[in-house]
C-alpha cells in the first residue's frame, strides 16, 4: 500500500487544483523557503482527519482555506483528496484504489469523502486504522516537531506505541 496521488484545491497556498502523482520509493521534496513544501505535509495531516488548527499552523481551521495572494482573491473552500493504492487488499474495500477526501467551506461546514461519496469522519478513521495510518501521528513528522518525541510526556510516547500495536 502506498500514496498514489494527492490533489489539493483551495488548501493553503494551493489555489488551483494541484495534483501530485507519487511513485513508490524515496521522494525528496525540495524548493525555496515559503514555496509550499510543508503545506503538502499539512494537506496530508488534514485529509487524515487532523482536528487541531494549531497543528496546521493556523489560528482557526478556516486558516487552511486559500486566503488570497496579491493577484488572486480568497477562495471559499479547501479540498484535499488522497488516493491510496490498495492492490494488496489491505483495506477492507473491494477497490484497488481508495480515495479519501475532506472539504471545508468558509461557512464552517466540513465534509469527509470516501470514494467520492460523503461519509462521516469516524468512517475515515476506522478505515485508516486498518491501514496503520491512525490520524497520521507517526507517519507525518511536521517541521520543527521531531523534538516533541523527546520533550513530550511519557504518556504521550505511550500513545504513539499504542498506535503501533
Amino acid at each position, binding site marked *: 500500500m502506498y500514496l498514489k496521488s494527492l490533489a489539493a484545491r483551495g488548501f493553503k497556498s494551493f489555489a488551483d487544483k494541484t495534483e501530485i502523482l507519487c511513485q513508490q520509493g524515496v521522494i525528496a521534496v525540495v*524548493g525555496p523557503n515559503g514555496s509550499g513544501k510543508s503545506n503538502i505535509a499539512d494537506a496530508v495531516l488534514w485529509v487524515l482527519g487532523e482536528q487541531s488548527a494549531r497543528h496546521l499552523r493556523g489560528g482557526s481551521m478556516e486558516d487552511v482555506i486559500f486566503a488570497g495572494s496579491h493577484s488572486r482573491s480568497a477562495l471559499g473552500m479547501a479540498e484535499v483528496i488522497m488516493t491510496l493504492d490498495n492492490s494488496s487488499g489491505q483495506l477492507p474495500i473491494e477497490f484497488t484504489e481508495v480515495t479519501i477526501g475532506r472539504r471545508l467551506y468558509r461557512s464552517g461546514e466540513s465534509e469527509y469523502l470516501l470514494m467520492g461519496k460523503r461519509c462521516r469522519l469516524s468512517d475515515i478513521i476506522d478505515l485508516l486504522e486498518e491501514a496503520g495510518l491512525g490520524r497520521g501521528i507517526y507517519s507525518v513528522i511536521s517541521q520543527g516537531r521531531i523534538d516533541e518525541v523527546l520533550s513530550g510526556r511519557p504518556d504521550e510516547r505511550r500513545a504513539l506505541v499504542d498506535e503501533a500495536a
Partner: protein
Amino acid sequence: INDVFADTFEKASNHFSEIFSLLFPGGRGKLLLTNEDNTLDAGIDIEVKLERKKFQKLSLMSGGERALAALAFTFALYATKPTPFCILDEVDAPLDEFNLARFVDLIDRFRKESQFFIITHQQRTMSAADILYGVSMQANGTTALVSQKIPEQKLSPTESVQEEV
C-alpha cells in the same frame, strides 16, 4: 489489552535499541515503562547513554543528538508497524555531515518497508532519493509543483541534465 501492549512495547523497544546503536555508534538507548507493575497506565521513558559520556538527562543533549534520538524512536515505530507512507519535514536540519550520512543510511534500510517523502534543503539527502519533486511559489502567489527529476548520481553521465527546479 495488556498483552497486546506488552507485546508491542517489547518489539518497539528492541527496534529502538537496535536503531539507536546504528545512529549512535558506541551508544545505547532504551525504552522503559514508567511503571512496570501497571502496564495499563504506564508511560514510556527514554534512557540514553552516548559514547564517552555518562547517562544523562535528555534535556542536556545537543540539538543534533536530540533530533537523532527522536528519529530512532520514530523509526522504531515504523519497524514495529510500517505505515503505508512517511513524511519527514526537514528532520535533517540540525545534523552534522556524519549524522546526516547515518540518517541517509537509516532511510536506505527502510526504503523497502514504506514510501518516504523527505522535505529537505540538504544536498546529501536529495542525492539519496529516487526522485526529486520541485515545489515553487509562482508569480501569482500560489504553489506549483514544477518538476520531477532524477537526482544526478542516479543518471548515467550523458543524462545528467541540470533542469532548473
